[in-house]
């Protein structure tokens, strides 16, 4: 499903040169649920951005779903993100002045094919928010916003769900609901990668990859 070969990401140049990811290789199979953990500055976010095709490695190769992403241009990467990757953000990142339903529909703005009628409503229902469809983000609680965010991430039937500290801005109860939802989705076969520094979140993944200073220091089978 996912394969990183000797991936290095360098920001800046000269004296300001920072190596965020240093020669990382790893592979993740379809249907896995993986936690990427490590202290801040360890390169977690950078690796997530490369996995999400939001950024390209300086060196090395990233293969997603059997296809190398190296030679893809910006438009092709956008298309790839739209079709294959769902993003869940720490800050929810719902579009402002846009209702819950419109947010869930948003990925179809950038898809070649139009959204099937009733699909977004069904997806909102799936995360238990059918009754909130016409509410704006600022009228929803954090937990509700994150569930709208998950519905949005799933609307295009992605092969990979990438979550960056998905429970970081939530109370324990709401965070638990989000993680339960992830577990359910994973059980249905969705590949999920969660970046977190929260040991409890990481503990719910099948395995975790630990980063430090841009290198993998520990990759194990996890606690599950």
């Amino acid at each position, binding site marked *: 499903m996912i394969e990183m070969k000797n991936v290095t990401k360098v920001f800046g140049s000269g004296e300001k040169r920072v190596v965020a990811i240093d020669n990382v290789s790893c592979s993740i199979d379809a249907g896995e649920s993986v936690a990427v953990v490590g202290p801040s500055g360890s390169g977690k976010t950078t690796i997530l951005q490369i996995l999400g095709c939001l950024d390209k490695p300086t060196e090395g190769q990233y293969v997603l779903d059997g296809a190398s992403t190296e030679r893809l241009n910006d438009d092709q990467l956008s298309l790839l993100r739209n079709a294959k990757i769902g993003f869940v953000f720490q800050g929810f*990142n719902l579009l402002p002045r846009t209702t819950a339903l419109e947010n869930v529909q948003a990925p179809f703005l*950038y898809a070649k094919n139009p959204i099937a009628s009733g699909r977004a409503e069904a997806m909102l229902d799936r995360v238990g928010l059918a009754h909130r469809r016409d509410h704006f983000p600022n009228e929803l609680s954090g937990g509700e916003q994150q569930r709208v965010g998950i519905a949005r991430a799933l609307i295009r039937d992605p092969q990979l769900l990438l979550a960056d500290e998905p429970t970081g801005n939530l109370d324990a109860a709401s965070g638990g609901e989000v993680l339960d939802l992830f577990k359910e989705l994973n059980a249905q076969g969705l590949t999920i990668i969660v970046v977190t520094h929260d040991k409890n979140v990481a503990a719910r993944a099948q395995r975790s990859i630990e980063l430090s200073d841009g290198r993998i220091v520990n990759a194990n089978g996890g606690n599950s």
Partner: protein
Amino acid sequence: MRWSDTWNVTTRTVRRAPIRSLLMGSGLILGVLVVSITTASGEGVRREMASMWKSMAGSIDAIFVQAGGPAQRGGQMAHGETVTTTLTIEDALAIGQQVPNVSAVAAALMSPGTPIEANGRSGTAFLLGVTPSWASLRGDPIAAGRDIREADNAAMERVVVLGSDAASEYFPDGNAVGQQVRVAGATFEVVGVHASLVEEESGGGMGSMGGYIHIPLQTALRRVYNQDYVSTLMVQLENTKEEETTAVALSELLRQRHAIQEGEYDDFQLTRPRAAIAQATSINAGIRRMIIWIGVVALVIGGIVVANLMFAATSDRQTEIGTRRALGATKGDVLQQFWVETVLVACTAGLLGVALSYLAVIVVPMVWDTTLYLPWWVAFGAFAATALVGLIAGLFPARRAAAMPPAVALSVDE
């Protein structure tokens, strides 16, 4: 991204942040208002003048020749009544034949304060002995009966056409046609009544000529006054652009016919409504041009304001941009969204400005005594200018938004 989706997303943004959009476009609204109102006031003055002249003179596409020049008027002041006897019907014929760019010439003998008796009432009226073309060139509408005809003129018939005021004064029941009227002691038959002009009704005193009566010119010359000179010629122009040249040729012909020597004053006077209107409106033209430039500057500054606020918006909305990119938006999608949004804000401001301008055209004359007229093409031009400003002002912020790398845009903390 489909255009319909872009439209939905951008109108949504503008509609759901109305105050922000309004503030953004305020400079443009102001610019449109200034340009429109200034043009409307200039156009209003021009139209008011033209309508005043039309109601007085009947036509503004003509040159009027009045008997009596500067020399006579001076004499009149010093020695009392002096009548100029040199302007004749032959002059009218000569002008029609010899001066280029003349489509028709009408002549009139004018006699204010002519005694009238009819229907048991008596008073005075402004009498005009006219050639049949006079009323038709003026475009006086007939309310009842008919106008003076060539046959009336040739046969020196004692027939009269009443102006609307005269008709309603002497025949309030409206049955004037066929009745008899005594004009300057002779009996005339009423053959027609003129309708009152709309301009006259609203113009009141100055423009109103409703208290006039028309009789055939030859009847006036031979049977009433026994003279061979007229008061005024109306020289209708074919092409108003050559008015100046025609006026010069007209002047030369009359001076020659009246045997006026070099250095002597004219014994006639030309009145040119178009020139008079142009002169009256040109007094304010300089000031108006300056205000229009202020309007144009307001539009430019309005555009800069819009561009600046959109630039600020691209910073404020980095998370939105990053999120959209993550959801699959290409650079082109982001460019399109922000550009269209700016154009939309500008066009909305332009439309609001035009709406406010038309409102002002209605409301301002209720408060101040002024005439405003906003031609549609000025309103449209001002709106088109705001659209253009939006296109230019929106391009650079939109390009900046599109160029933002998604990873960077997403790593910004709000």
